[in-house]
Every structure is written in structure tokens, then in C-alpha cells.
């Protein structure tokens, strides 16, 4: 490619919008409009059919776009990419809700020692928890529990499938309440 075409290629790639002939000409004040047009043509013919992208004339300018035939695959991949893992904060909150349900936000906050409002909203949004009832007391707080899709994602039959807290590592075992009715 001509040096001018190489420069235009870089600019067109980096630009967040289609670049007009004027835009492109401003990159190299020495080059005339004719040279810019020739460079555009050179780029267009270089990105021929065997390439995944093409230079498209659009909105009074030019822009690199992926070829139509790949658009769907890439779109599909955008959400297929990287199954999302939960953050440690989300996992902690989920664990508390799984073992303490129905449980209110205040208790979750208290156990974690930080505000959990945003995390709870995320978990609700993702359908891992839901409001199951309202608690007693001031303002009748919303109480949360886990949803069937929570079990589904973990591959559990039901909540009984969750390991009992007593089975978790001995060091962290919850001290046994002394004959106290729960």
C-alpha cells in the first residue's frame, strides 16, 4: 500500500465514526483530495472478498465494517463469549442467602460487614434469587431466597443437595448451639 493509504487505514480503524473525505484529507495536509480518493480506492480493493472486513461508504464517509456473512456469527459469539463467573462478593451473598433463606438485606449486610444492596440487585436481575416474602418488624423488609435456576446452574436437585454447614471444613465449623431451639 501507498504510505497515505496505510495512514488512512489506521485512522479509519481507530475512528469511532465514519470519516469524511475532509476528515481524511486533514490527516495529511500535503496530499490533495485526488490522492486521498486514490488511497481510499486502494484500501477498498485491498480489502476484497477474501477478507473478513470491508471499507464501506456510509453516512457521507467511510468506515470499516465486518462483512455481512460474518456478522451473525460474531454477534452470536459476543454473548457466547466467556460464560460469566460471579464475583467473590456475589458468591458470598449468594451463599448467605442459600443457607439463611428467607433472609433480609440487613442480615446479609451484617454478616458481610459491607453494604450488599448492589450485589443483591445483580443477583435478582440474574434470576438467582427472588423475593420470597416479607419479614416482620419495621418496614416489613423484603426477604430473599434462591430460585430454581440457582439449583439448575449448580446442578442440584434441591436445596437439600447443598452440603450441610457441618460438613464444611472443620476449622470454620459453626459452633454447635447448646440445646437451643432455633
Amino acid at each position, binding site marked *: 500500500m501507498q504510505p497515505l493509504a496505510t495512514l488512512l487505514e489506521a485512522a479509519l480503524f481507530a475512528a469511532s465514526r465514519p470519516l469524511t473525505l475532509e476528515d481524511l484529507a486533514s490527516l495529511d495536509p500535503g496530499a490533495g483530495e485526488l490522492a486521498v480518493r486514490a488511497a481510499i480506492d486502494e484500501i477498498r480493493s485491498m480489502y476484497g472478498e477474501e477478507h473478513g472486513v470491508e471499507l464501506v461508504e456510509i453516512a457521507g464517509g467511510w468506515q470499516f465494517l465486518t462483512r455481512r456473512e460474518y456478522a451473525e456469527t460474531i454477534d452470536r459469539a459476543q454473548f457466547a463469549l466467556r460464560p460469566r463467573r460471579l464475583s467473590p462478593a456475589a458468591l458470598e451473598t449468594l451463599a448467605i442467602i442459600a443457607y439463611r433463606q428467607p433472609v433480609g438485606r440487613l442480615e446479609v449486610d451484617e454478616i458481610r460487614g459491607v453494604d450488599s444492596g448492589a450485589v443483591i440487585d445483580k443477583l435478582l436481575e440474574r434470576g438467582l434469587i427472588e423475593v420470597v416474602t416479607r419479614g416482620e418488624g419495621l418496614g416489613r423488609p423484603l426477604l430473599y431466597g434462591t430460585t430454581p435456576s440457582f439449583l439448575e446452574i449448580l446442578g442440584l436437585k434441591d436445596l437439600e443437595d447443598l452440603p450441610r454447614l457441618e460438613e464444611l471444613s472443620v476449622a470454620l465449623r*459453626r459452633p454447635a448451639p447448646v440445646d437451643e431451639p432455633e
Partner: protein
Amino acid sequence: MTGPPILRDPGNSGFVVELEKFSGPLDLLLHLIREDEVDITDLPIAKIADQFLSVIQDLGLNQAADYLEMAARLLRIKAQMLLPRRLGDDEWEDPRAELVRRLLEYQQIRELVDWLGHAADVRAERFGRGYEAPPPDAPPAPLQIDLNDLLAAAERVIALIPEPMLHRVVPRPLDVEGATARITALLAEREQVAWSDMVGPAATIVDVLSTFIALLELAKRSALTLSQPEPFGPMVITRATPRDAA
């Protein structure tokens, strides 16, 4: 990025340091050490302490807690250095040791900062794709939760649960409403029921109290009558006839 510029002030014998250019008292100390070209491991503590104090005083920095704390630390070390020590005392610990260790560590961090800053500058010379296609309307990305991750999180939070919460007994409030509904349902089937029908064999004290209050309330509303045929005998609950109730 290595050192903040020192603005020489011709009208003043001292110098003016732009404080925002320092990221903290350690940075300022390192700067003074470089200016004086002294050995960091054999710090002339008295000199450095005086310089530090005069700089933060000139800058009105004596309100900044971090700088003030460092000033106090320097003065303490200065005083400790003046304490007499016996010759050949092996036990003697250089009072500067901890500060020197921190300064060396911090100096290393500053070097890393230079490296990182340079790397970021080089990277900034390359542009990524500027145009981002609007995301397609798609279901959210599938979630991946590992049971082990969840359990690890559970273990973390179990350790966080404050002691008092472990033994908390949740007092269950009286359920008068539920008891009322239960009684009404029973009386809809039968005209007369016994107390023992109302509360099961395994009734808790809360159940008994709830049922009792519900009975009294219903009797007051003339929805039923309570009678006890013989002293200490079982209580009999009779449905009120519609006429009675009216």
C-alpha cells in the same frame, strides 16, 4: 515522572516544592535524600528530619496527618540516635532500620511506577478499534457457578458471622390470625369441638397462646360459646347458631 520539579525561588533562600507532586511523605523523603545525595542506608537523620520539617512547614502541610506522622517518626528516631550506647553492644538496634527498610521498599515501588508509566505511554500510542457496533439483543451470558466456589464463599462468610448471631433465638410472634382461621374451619365442619382438637399433641406454647387468644376473641364476638361441663374437665367449644350470632 522520576522527580517532581523544584521551583527555585530567587527571592527566597529555601525552595518551593509543589506538594501535589508528591504522593506522600515517603515520596518527599526520597526526594530530599536524592537532593542531598546521601546514602539511604546510612541516613543522616538529623539533617533529613530538619529539612522535612521545614518543607512541610513552608507548605502549610502540618495539617496533613500522613506528613505529620512522618515528622513525628523522624524526630523520634533523631532522639533515639542521640541516646548513649555502650561500646560493643551487640544488642543495639539501629533506630533507623525500619524507616530505611520502608524507604528502600518505596523506592522500588517508584521504579516500578516509572516502568508502568512508560509501558502505559507506549500502549497509548496504539489505538484499538474505535467504532463499537451496538450489542445485539441477546440473552445475557450464561452464568457459571462452581459449587466449590459457592462453598468457599460460604466458609468465608461463616467465619464472618458475629458471635451473638449464632445463638440468636428468633421469637416467633403469636399467630392469632392463623388460629382464628383454624378454629373457624373446624367449627364449619362440626358444631362442637374439644380443646384438644384445636391444638395438636405437639403444640408449642406459642400455638397454645395463639389458639387461646383466638378463642376468647371469637367468644367475645359471639361466634362461639365456651363451656366447661365439670370442674377441671376439658373445655367444650360450641359453634354459635346464626341467630345467636346476630
